[in-house]
């Protein structure tokens, strides 16, 4: 997870009136920022520029929040954020870094992005969002689980060990490994669902 990105600036920037929406925003930033960052890196941007881009996406979303508040909030905040952010990503990626920095820019390798790329971009950001959602949920689950239970999943599903290997290494029976990883997946599923729905539902 890209956890070392600074995120105080967004927290200061946003003035959401409803505390519940504020939580939704914080959570959104935690998941969306690394998702945008990864997409930008996949498009060939360097670390600093990818961070810059994810920052700009969040700032443009934050700036749009008063619009949402004026609109009478017909849409759920979380859903609205996703939609606006997706548009912002498409805009930022198709515009390229040149005119957005306000610097006098020496010749930079420009981001190549054609018009037909936008729906592809939408799909990619959705995928990266879902990936990040799972990773975020995995961190939550891991913190709440005991180490052996987590390792049963980590070894067999992430590190590619067989059930028998994991059982030997953790000094548990295979039955324990099967049980533990199903339990972890169930919790992971529950946390993902919780993150996707609004907390008041």
């Amino acid at each position, binding site marked *: 997870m890209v956890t070392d990105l600074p995120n105080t600036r967004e927290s200061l920037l946003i003035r959401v009136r409803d505390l519940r929406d504020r939580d939704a925003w914080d959570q959104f930033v935690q998941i969306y920022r690394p998702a945008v960052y990864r997409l930008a890196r996949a498009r060939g941007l360097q670390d600093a520029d990818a961070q810059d881009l994810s920052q700009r996406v969040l700032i443009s979303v934050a700036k749009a929040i008063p619009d949402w508040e004026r609109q009478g909030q017909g849409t759920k905040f979380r859903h609205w954020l996703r939609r606006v952010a997706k548009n912002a990503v498409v805009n930022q990626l198709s515009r390229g870094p040149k005119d957005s920095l306000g*610097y*006098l820019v020496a010749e*930079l390798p420009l981001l190549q992005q054609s018009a037909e790329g936008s729906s592809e971009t939408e799909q990619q950001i959705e995928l990266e969002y879902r990936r990040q959602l799972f990773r975020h949920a995995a961190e939550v689950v891991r913190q709440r689980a005991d180490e052996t239970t987590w390792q049963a999943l980590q070894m067999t599903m*992430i590190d590619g060990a067989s059930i028998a290997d994991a059982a030997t290494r953790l000094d548990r*029976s295979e039955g324990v490994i099967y049980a533990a990883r199903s339990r972890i997946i169930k919790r992971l599923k529950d946390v993902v669902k919780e993150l996707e729905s609004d907390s008041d539902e």
Partner: protein
Amino acid sequence: MNDATNASTCDPARLVDYLKDRLSNDDEVALTEHLNQCAVCRNELAIAAASKEIWTDAADFLKADADELGRVLGLGAGHDQDRFERNTHQIQQVLDILAPTDDPQSLGRLGPYEVTGVVGSGGMGVVLKATEKSLDRTVAIKVLAPHLGANGAA
């Protein structure tokens, strides 16, 4: 339930109770012993835990995360230090190409600009703060990293 049936019986309700953390410790032990022998219940448990899509997504999404996970756990602590040194080196390289200046406030000249400071440095290059003397205005100049500038593809 008595212990004899616990270890040998297939009981779907027990699987659900396990997933919901509703079994006693003893019952959990009995269930795991049962799972040692019973492939049907192992499969039933996996299905009750999550859909196939969730299992696949979890494997895909978390697998690529392994190296990042290592970083979170402190296995890659050298990363930031590396980046810091690379950036410092890069800034020095850029400052080295500046032309000499008479202005004591300036680090050097770059074309018509007197460079007065370094704003930042990243993967692509270095951003300099500079003054354009003729117009008396402050500008930021982004200079492509020397290693990229030397590379025809960049």
